């Protein structure tokens, strides 16, 4: 007689397989939970913060206070902070004050060796290099850091300032200029990374200096595999306040 029941292990094997399957299931579930948890922690705690890539900064060729050409290509590879004003403006003190505070703060900002340029673009079509030079001197601009520039072509100026930098200004028939207060931070690739148009608890200069540090950190660290972490920060909108 052959006793098959004694050699068939089926009743014993089934529970073993189920148990092994359960282990796999638990393993995969733990792995999935870890991945989801990591993403959640990354988004919540934001170990990496970045500034958004808002849009392209305009291309331009202007004339500075020394009568030299100042172009958007000259700014390539440097962080640039733009603002808009004009030498005869009587209400632009706070704009100049913010630029001066940024200029003074650059020495102690964590820029990791990256160069920063400040540029005031005059929206007055009657502006000359000489009037801009006097203006620059009156507001304490360091010519190595802070440039003043314009172009005597109203249409081109409108394309650059209003169209490209998104800053409203108008020139009335009576010659009166209406201008919005605005600062625009552009990275070395010519992409606008932040705009400062509205008052916040922190002053504009404080935020701009902090954001320059954030930009410098991204520029210094986002190469190789770390670049993926920075792209994830952009993807999950981990933006510096």
């Amino acid at each position, binding site marked *: 007689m*052959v*006793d*098959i029941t004694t*050699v*068939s*292990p*089926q009743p014993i*094997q089934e529970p073993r*397989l189920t148990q*092994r*399957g359960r282990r*796999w299931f638990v393993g*995969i579930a733990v792995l999935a939970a870890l991945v989801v948890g990591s993403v959640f922690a990354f988004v919540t705690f934001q170990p990496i913060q970045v500034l*958004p*890539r*808002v*849009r*392209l*900064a*305009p*291309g*331009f*060729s202007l004339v500075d206070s020394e009568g030299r*050409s100042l*172009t*958007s*290509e000259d700014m390539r590879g440097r962080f640039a902070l733009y603002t808009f004003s004009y030498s005869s403006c009587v209400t632009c003190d706070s704009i100049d004050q913010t630029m001066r505070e940024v200029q003074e703060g650059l020495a102690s900002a964590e820029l990791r060796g990256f160069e920063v340029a400040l540029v005031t673009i005059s929206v007055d079509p009657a502006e000359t290099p000489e009037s801009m030079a006097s203006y620059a001197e009156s507001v304490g601009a360091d010519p190595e850091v802070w440039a003043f520039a314009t172009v005597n072509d109203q*249409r*081109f100026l409108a*394309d*650059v300032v209003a*169209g*490209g930098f998104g800053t409203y200004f108008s020139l009335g028939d009576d010659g009166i200029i209406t201008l919005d207060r605005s600062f625009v931070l552009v*990275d070395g*690739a*010519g*992409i606008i990374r932040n705009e400062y148009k509205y008052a916040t608890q922190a002053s504009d200069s404080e935020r701009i200096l902090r954001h320059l540090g954030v930009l410098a950190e991204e520029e210094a660290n986002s190469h190789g595999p770390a*670049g*993926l972490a920075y*792209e*994830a920060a*952009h*993807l999950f*909108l981990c933006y510096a306040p």
Partner: protein
Amino acid sequence: MTETLVPEAEHPSSRRWLGLSVLLVPLLIAGLVFWWGFNRSQPHQFSGSVIQGLSAAPDFTLSSDRGPVSLSDYAGRIVMIYFGYTFCPDVCPTTLADAAAAIDSLSDDDAEDVQLIFVTIDPARDTADRLGEYVRHFDDRFVGLTGTEEEIGSVATLYGIYYRAGEGSEATGYLMEHTATLLVIDQAGNLKIVIPFGVESDAIASDLEYMLR
């Protein structure tokens, strides 16, 4: 003897293999699905700067040798825009050749969804006919556009392009200084990638493939 009478399929080792197979095959399939999903979802490293937000590319209408062309004519397709000029000795032909090679490497269906527009920054010398002939030398599907100085100036400014007539020689005529970025607009009409000069065709093709997924 007991062993000789046990049916083959019911041998303990066969049953173990059967059990393992039942477990491993679905796991293998799950692994492949996971790998495929991971590959599709992992962040793609673009060859240029990516503009994450919605930055609508400004529409424009300029002239080609086959009539007026607007950016909006290509709505729903990926549009690469390059600003250059036909007398350009090196940078422009290199970029156009790389862009053509990138599009060529795509499948026919994908290539249909990509359009390159070449906008001259030297309208004084680049007529529509000359531009058409020039761009089709690189790819029959390319479009070359020109316009008045004012029209070109406005479009170039809004696309972050600086240009100016510079020095040259008797042989070349004057040369143009200009920003040499290749701009990529996605299917929704948003400016998405700013590719610097020097990126090779493989990397451009990889970006296009990713955007076409």
